[in-house]
């Protein structure tokens, strides 16, 4: 385990305000990308800045390569950091930007030149030595920033929303590039992002944060299929929420009933999170079926290969359904049609009134 964080806490401002990080613990495996995922204000950037040494923790420990470096100054921690805003030195050329850390370390001119050349090849911008940051596109700037961070041979690479300022297409391109880049360099990486897709695509290990606390840690698969809390279920996948009660061990939402959580008391209130992809629409039939409800199509939104539909259930609840365009076209569903709604899967949580 290359980076281990134990009970890390940080509070900004006065007492009583919510902590930016509250007893955060996780381990980032060597040579892999670990994602810190969460909505804005969840404390993920604070945790990253604490690891970098840009902020001092109020409590807790940070270990890099098994060495406690909680009080080590940032420059001695051996970390590289990439900012959302790139933070390139605008008055310096690409060469001087990448060479900055080495120049500070009193490397010779020849060493710096060689290293810069090598890193520019690595970030696939060879020959860009003489350019200024203002002459580069956003994606190119971030790659130069990564080269600059790598120049000092960091043990850990910390990326704070590195693609947050880029437009969607470039972001996806750079994401794929970063995956290959990380594999080829093998440097332990911690990525902060609010983008679930980015986290899931880039890392096998995701730490999900909410209000400064770690709410779940695991593989994308774990988080997606076994969300630990209602927050995780709703954060990952824009879920529909249906309310109901436990009856005879099953969660009864009026419209649907599914297996209830183990040990739930009879009569307990529950919330069921149902992803739009986990609901199917079929043509109405006369045969009675389990867990199938009659509903009316109220809105149809076509987004490329898939179609989003808003359907109103008999109970008056509206749910969003997402299906492949080919399936919807095959069914010939139109606005206002009556359809059968089939619920495939739901994550059920007993309501917690002790919030």
């Amino acid at each position, binding site marked *: 385990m290359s980076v281990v964080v134990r009970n890390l806490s940080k509070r900004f401002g006065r007492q009583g305000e919510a902590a930016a990080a509250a007893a955060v613990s996780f381990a980032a495996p060597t040579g892999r990308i670990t994602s810190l995922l969460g909505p804005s204000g969840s404390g993920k950037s604070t945790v990253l800045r604490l690891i970098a*040494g840009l902020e001092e923790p109020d409590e807790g420990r940070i270990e890099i390569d098994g060495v406690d470096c909680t009080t080590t100054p940032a420059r001695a921690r051996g970390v590289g*950091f990439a900012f959302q805003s790139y933070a390139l030195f605008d008055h310096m050329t690409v060469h001087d930007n990448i060479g900055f850390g080495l120049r500070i370390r009193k490397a010779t001119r020849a060493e710096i030149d060689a290293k810069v050349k090598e890193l520019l090849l690595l970030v696939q911008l060879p020959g860009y030595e003489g350019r200024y940051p203002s002459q580069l596109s*956003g994606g190119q700037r971030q790659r130069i920033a990564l080269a600059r961070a790598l120049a000092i041979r960091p043990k850990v690479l910390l990326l704070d929303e590195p693609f947050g300022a880029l437009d969607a297409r470039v972001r996806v391109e750079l994401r794929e590039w970063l995956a290959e880049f990380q594999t080829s360099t093998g440097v332990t990486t911690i990525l902060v992002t609010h983008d679930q897709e980015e986290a899931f695509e880039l890392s096998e290990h995701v730490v999900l944060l909410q209000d400064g606390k770690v709410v779940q840690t695991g593989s994308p698969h774990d988080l997606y299929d076994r969300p630990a809390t209602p927050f995780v279920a709703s954060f990952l996948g824009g879920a529909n929420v249906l309310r109901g009660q436990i009856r005879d061990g099953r969660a009864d939402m009026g419209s649907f009933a599914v297996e209830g959580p183990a040990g739930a008391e009879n009569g307990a209130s529950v919330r069921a999170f149902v992803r739009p992809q986990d609901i199917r629409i079929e043509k109405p039939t006369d045969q009675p079926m389990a867990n199938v409800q009659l509903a009316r199509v109220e809105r149809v939104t076509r987004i490329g290969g898939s179609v989003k539909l808003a359907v109103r259930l008999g109970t008056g609840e509206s749910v969003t359904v997402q299906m492949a365009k080919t399936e919807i076209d095959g069914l010939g569903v139109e606005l206002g049609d009556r359809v059968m709604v089939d619920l495939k899967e739901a994550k059920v949580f007993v309501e917690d009134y002790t919030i």
Partner: protein
Amino acid sequence: MSTSLPPIRSVESRRQVGVAAERPWVRWLLTAVALAFVATFLVVPLAIVFFEAFAKGPAAYVAAIIEDEALAAIRLTLVIAAIVVPLNFIFGLAAAWLLARYDFFGKSILLSLIDLPFSVSPVISGLIFVLLFGAQGWFGPFFADRGISIIFAVPGIVLATAFVTFSLVAREVLAVMQAQGSAEEEAAFILGASGPQILWHVTLPKIRWGVLYGVILCNARAMGEFGAVSVVSGHVRGQTNTMPLEVEILYNEYRFVGAFAVASLLTLLAVATLVLKKIVERTVSRQRRDAPAAGKGLALALPAPPTGAR
């Protein structure tokens, strides 16, 4: 009235719509009022300074300036500026750094205090120092016992001038620093740079135009300050008289050529300041405009980085 206008003009005015479509005579009247105002309050006084300075010919003008007392005043003014501007440059940088980068108790109070010298009447600023360091002042006797004179001497003038120009560099640099944030400094910090290295390699290059702008304003004010300096200087000719004070004395002695000759130098300083200020302003705003715009434009112009993501 519109019929008397040339055809092209009427086409133009027909093209105008809405609020911009005043009647021609309204436009003429407003323009005339504005021009008259500018002429009365700006152009004529400026012209008169030079007109009066050269009233008795260039020889008299030169003679008035190379007169011992005038030269002494010029020298003193330059000395004061040479002391005050670097002082406030250092203070301004330090204060702006502190205010832009750190949160601490009393920050808003410090922020208001920095503006205080600018909002207080300069005469009051001068009086403050007389009350502090004058013969009957709080610290006056302490320095007098040690043979150091502050009021009615150069140190007093330096103090008063430094006080009234206190906020000029700090204000400008603070605005630039706040606009730029501190990510570059953090990047340099992680890359191993020490505090002085960050200041020299990262921060100063980032804020250099803001600093220059503040220094230009500070210098102009330091050389031109009258009120505060008048209170503490004692008006000893050849010793504690700065240029603005010299102008007043010469004028009161009815030596108009001399008064206006020295005044013309101050006027030239003002004009030079305005020109410099304009150049720096343009550079700063162009940099601000370019920084995000250039990135955006290039991002569109160079779609996928050629060898790009693969």
